[in-house]
């Protein structure tokens, strides 16, 4: 169950002011097995991502359905149109890269116009890819490496932190057990202590981080 859940469903946030294009990109992403949220503006995108001046983390517009605190609704990739009224895709990209919490999320820009200066500006600002519209299914194949890279980076960080924590716990646990053994040779170790240690030893296998990630995915 853990393995299956981990395979499924990266979550993409798609931003476009044109309703047809939103429908199209949503369908494209879904057929490529992504989970999709669409919004029609850069400001709604930032709101969804939890970047709000007032820090109103629980006030989300009714068109976005979520029952979780924004931090738990993990977004693995953002794909945005360039030409939008108000905040352009470029403005949105900048805001994301300026945010410490969001800057690691890969961003892809789409545009109906092939303007080399625009493309290089976006790539320089940190966009991973630039798609010309209309976007095709084949374009989406270019997304996966960026998503995988960001996800595995997260997992490595998580795993590193968990192992450090577990090392600490094992050390203190060992110390406690030594003291116990001196007093209680005959009796079996306390069940809670033993199972905890066993669980920790099992947890040291790399597979454990995948179920962890899938828990987050399941919440999404």
């Amino acid at each position, binding site marked *: 169950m853990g393995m299956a859940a981990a395979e499924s469903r990266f979550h993409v946030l798609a931003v476009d002011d*044109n*309703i*047809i*294009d939103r*429908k*199209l990109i949503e*369908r*494209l992403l*879904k*057929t490529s097995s992504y989970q999709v949220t669409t919004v029609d503006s850069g400001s709604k995108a930032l709101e969804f991502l939890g970047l709000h001046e007032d820090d109103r983390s629980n006030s989300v517009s009714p068109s976005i359905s979520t029952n979780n605190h924004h931090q738990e609704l993990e977004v693995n990739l953002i794909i945005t149109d360039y*030409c939008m*009224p108000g905040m352009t895709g470029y403005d949105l990209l900048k805001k994301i890269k300026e945010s410490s919490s969001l800057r690691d999320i890969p961003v892809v820009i789409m545009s*109906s116009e092939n303007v080399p200066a625009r493309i290089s500006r976006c790539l320089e600002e940190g966009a991973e890819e630039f798609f010309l*519209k*209309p976007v*095709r*299914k084949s374009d989406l194949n270019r997304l996966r490496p960026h998503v995988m890279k960001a996800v595995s980076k997260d997992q490595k960080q998580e795993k590193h932190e968990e192992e450090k924590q577990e090392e600490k716990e094992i050390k203190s646990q060992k110390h406690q057990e030594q003291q116990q053994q001196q007093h209680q040779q005959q009796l079996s170790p306390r069940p809670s202590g033993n199972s905890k240690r066993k669980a920790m030893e099992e947890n040291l296998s790399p597979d454990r981080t995948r179920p962890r990630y899938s828990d987050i995915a399941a919440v999404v």
Partner: protein
Amino acid sequence: MLGWGVDFLRAEMNRLLALLFHQGVLDEQFLQLQQLQDESSPNFVSEVITIYFSESEKLLRNLRMLLMDRELSDYKKMEIHLNQMMGSSSSIGAKRVRNVCVAFRAASEQSNHAGCLRALELLEHEYCYLKNKLHELFQIEQQRALASGVRYPAQHD
């Protein structure tokens, strides 16, 4: 009992599509749209096209309104509407409509009122033609689905 056979209808559909491609009314993007339709989203194409129709008609109405006053035509606003229509048309593969939008936009950028009016006439004409042909296409598709025994959801215009 329907008189038309499935094969005949499929041939009809292909013929109409080939014609529209030949005329440049539709381009390859329309095929991309069809490929996105499957069992999990069986009405995808007609859903998108329906939205396209209502959006386009709104934009066309707005453009006509904006051109009514020769003196105070808001060209900036026109360009915004045109960009929307260009984008949508391109996304569904409506090549001729899109190309007229490009010409229209050029006239608007030059504040050429007469040119804009001509472009709007042409745009309305192209749009009408596209709409009629797409309706034809959907009708044939509906008949084909019925003929092959597939239950087809009721289509409201």
